[in-house]
């Protein structure tokens, strides 16, 4: 599902939301993999100095018997060839969410937000045409499940397998 809007401030908002997400719980501690539903293709407005990238998702325990140590490391990648090859964005666009202790039992809705310059930097060319962005993820320890609300009791008093948070990714252009 895609929505596009324009106004005088946040121009060219591109918003994608997955309304039928699948659980993602296949993260390893050794190598990064795609974080599902975090990918977006975007062409900035011509005036843009920055593109604001946002990815909203839920993370929590990997099932009722899952490990109580819950965390995820996410980093931003980009592609200028339609997704054939991907490069780290770099410039401090890697984050660790959660905790490495089981006492915390981390969980919650998280919005990862980066303000990305459209100008060239190092080997990265200026952002003038279509560029893809996505997040790679891995876990530091324990286990993690994305998109499904585990340890959610709601009104029934029981964990429901149907409680999902629909992840979304968006980009918009900013001029300073």
């Amino acid at each position, binding site marked *: 599902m895609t929505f596009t809007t324009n*106004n*005088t*401030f*946040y121009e060219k908002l591109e918003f994608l939301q997955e309304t039928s997400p699948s659980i993602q719980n296949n993260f390893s501690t050794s190598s990064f993999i795609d974080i599902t539903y975090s990918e977006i293709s975007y062409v900035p407005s011509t005036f843009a100095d*920055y593109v604001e990238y946002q990815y909203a998702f839920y993370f929590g325990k990997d099932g009722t018997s899952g490990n109580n140590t819950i*965390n995820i*490391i996410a980093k931003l990648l980009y592609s200028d060839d339609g997704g054939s090859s991907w490069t780290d964005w770099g*410039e*401090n666009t*890697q*984050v*660790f*969410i*959660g*905790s*490495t*202790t089981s*006492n*915390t039992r*981390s969980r919650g809705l*998280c*919005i*990862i*937000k980066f*303000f990305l*310059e459209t100008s060239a930097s190092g080997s990265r060319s200026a952002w003038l045409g279509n560029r893809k962005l996505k997040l790679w993820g891995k876990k*530091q320890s324990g286990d993690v499940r994305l998109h499904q609300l585990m340890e959610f009791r709601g009104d029934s008093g029981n964990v429901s397998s149907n409680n999902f948070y629909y992840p979304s990714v968006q980009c918009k252009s*900013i*001029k*300073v």
Partner: protein
Amino acid sequence: MTYLLDYENAEKNFKLVKTTVTAYDTVGTSWANVSGSQIAYTPNSGASKVIYEFSSAYGYLDDDNSLEIKLQIGNDLSSVGDVVTNNVNYYSSFGGTSSTNTQGSDMIALRYVLDVSSLSWTGEKTLVLQCKTYSSSSAKQSLVNCTTPTDDEVNDSLLFNPTVICYSI
């Protein structure tokens, strides 16, 4: 309270300051400025509100890490103070406060709304966030502008570039 925004005329005088950090802030036991949270801003003529937004991240130094934040305003950085009496509505807090290990890392996304008329805000003013540990505890320290996947913050911390935005409505 509800504000209706006319998007053709809303969000004027937009200003963004992004700071590339080379080191994290260590949260201490007394209030100190948060790197990258400072912005000098003049409201748009006729504006009733100024929106201040701050984006960054925090990690842990102590196993039980906490973080208290408050917004300050003044004519310049040397003269900032509370936004209103007791700074009601301009505080926030993060992390854990018990003796159970937290070791928490998360994003920081703050939004504060300031009333232009009640502040008699006409020219440029400086806004900045200040932070300290919960209850000024020296055993509950966090780090700001980074996240921490391990307890080796010196080698493993992941720096995060803070961004502050102001605009008028």
